[in-house]
């Protein structure tokens, strides 16, 4: 069983090829550069490097958001097309859940997040259980203060994982004090190999055609339109 994992949902771009019990290779960058130009060449490069042909793949796994709308769409467009045209299953995994894996040996609450501008973050709460991490609080978009206040409700220690840590660290420390711990700089890039194994152990989506990104948010125009309909 060989799987290709693709993550272009945020500035971190990652691709990995795995087979059962083994990571054949992964490629990760953390750059503010165009995923549309770089993602397919990265896929080609890693596949060539590990000598796996597209036709030898058994599964495609993609980080399906949240994150940059455009970034998520590039990854999902490529993943859907590969899965459909190769006739293999597609599995989508939360981009936050992938990042949370970097704290998988931590005993408290694991809090991955991506900055979502204007004081907001995309985030969720994950905890270690017998068979890996479990979702304690679903992925959402929320004001950082509100989120940290919510976490403060328990005495637990929290591990924050994010390349956007510096933007929000002050607020987190202010509210949580010693309850807040921070992952080290080498742990902030989501790892595509983690994504691949999450996807390998999960039921594939029943329909590749119906697969959609999880943007978490409606498009602005759509949200406004819905609000106007309710009046």
């Amino acid at each position, binding site marked *: 069983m060989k799987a290709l994992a693709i993550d272009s949902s945020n500035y971190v771009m990652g691709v990995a090829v795995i087979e059962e019990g083994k990571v054949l290779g992964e490629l990760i960058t953390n750059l503010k550069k165009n995923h549309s130009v*770089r993602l*397919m060449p990265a*896929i080609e490069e890693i596949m060539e490097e590990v000598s796996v042909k597209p036709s030898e793949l058994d599964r495609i796994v993609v980080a399906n958001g949240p994150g940059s709308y*455009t970034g998520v*769409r590039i990854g999902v467009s490529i993943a859907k*097309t*590969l899965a459909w045209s190769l006739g293999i299953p597609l599995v989508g995994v939360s981009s936050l859940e992938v990042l949370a894996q970097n704290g998988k040996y931590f005993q408290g609450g694991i809090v991955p997040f991506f900055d979502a501008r204007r004081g907001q973050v995309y985030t969720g709460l994950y905890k270690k259980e017998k068979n890996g991490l479990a979702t304690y609080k679903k992925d959402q978009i929320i004001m950082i203060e509100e989120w940290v206040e919510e976490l403060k409700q328990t005495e637990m220690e929290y591990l924050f994982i994010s390349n956007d840590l510096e933007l929000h660290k002050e607020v987190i420390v202010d509210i949580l004090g010693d309850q807040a711990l921070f992952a080290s700089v080498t742990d902030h890039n989501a790892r595509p190999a983690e994504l691949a194994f999450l996807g390998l152990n999960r039921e594939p989506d029943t329909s590749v*055609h119906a697969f959609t990104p999880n943007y978490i948010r409606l*498009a602005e125009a*759509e949200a406004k339109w819905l609000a106007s309909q309710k009046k």
Partner: protein
Amino acid sequence: MSDKHDEIILAIETSCDETAVAVVKNGREVLSNVVASQIESHKRFGGVVPEIASRHHVEQMTLILEEALKEASITMDEVDAIAVTEGPGLVGALLVGVNTAKALAFAHQKPLVGVHHIAGHIYANQLIKELEYPLLALVVSGGHTELVLMEAEGEYQVIGETRDDAAGEAYDKVARTLKLPYPGGPHIDKLAQEGSPTIDLPRAWLEPGSYDFSFSGLKSAVINTVHNAAQRGETIEPEDLAASFQASVIDVLVEKTVRAAKEHNVKQVVLAGGVAANKGLRKELEERFKDLSADLLIPPLQLCTDNAAMIGAAGSIAYRKGKRSDLKLNANPGLILQ
């Protein structure tokens, strides 16, 4: 059986609000041409919302691909090359098509060819009749008003373009002034058939000899006419206003096209782009070209509006000329036709 292998192009177009895939044989024969329009979704907003267009493209893309291949009874193995619109257009929308095409090219090890959207509109005509050069194309759509001279196959020279609004844009704005539903172009065309061009509106000829266009003055004149009439408590028949506006647009378009056709001694004049569906424009062009030596080509309606068969037709030319794109191909919203 012919000893020559048929060339099969799979084409993808997502530059605006249509998710389209087509299979084209030998650059001329449409084996399938599937278009999923999002217009019903965008009507709510009175225009195309880029983020929503991009989201729809992701939802539709593989479905439309499957449908196009099925309808053409073609498998990916039989495809010789994949053509895709790389620009111009909405960047987020283009990205879906471009990355889909790249993934397909990689998965099946097929050559990839990036195509200019306007080249597609021009080559839609090749699906009807063999094009002959030199040729002049009048390209009119929501985003474009251009006169393109082609001395040879696949060689484009823009000899005139709009300095402000595209003709289609002016149509949409005037339609809004007349409170017509989106998209406005077809509604104005229809209204115009019922009225007469009795209102005096300007025609922007620009400096002598210029093939450029300008529609913003005309658009303002229409808005002022409506505004002034309302202030004086007079009523203007919308049919007459539509007819007058349309007459002004068509006058300039047709006159400059005729002049360019004569000057460059072209064999064919082809109409291209969504506004090519306009009845008034078709009629006037047919009228004027009756007595001219150049042959006038106007594609059928379903090939005027955005579709992927036209990208397949233009892609076939580029493919045969040896053009290849690699996996770094990007969406280019400001791509220049050359």
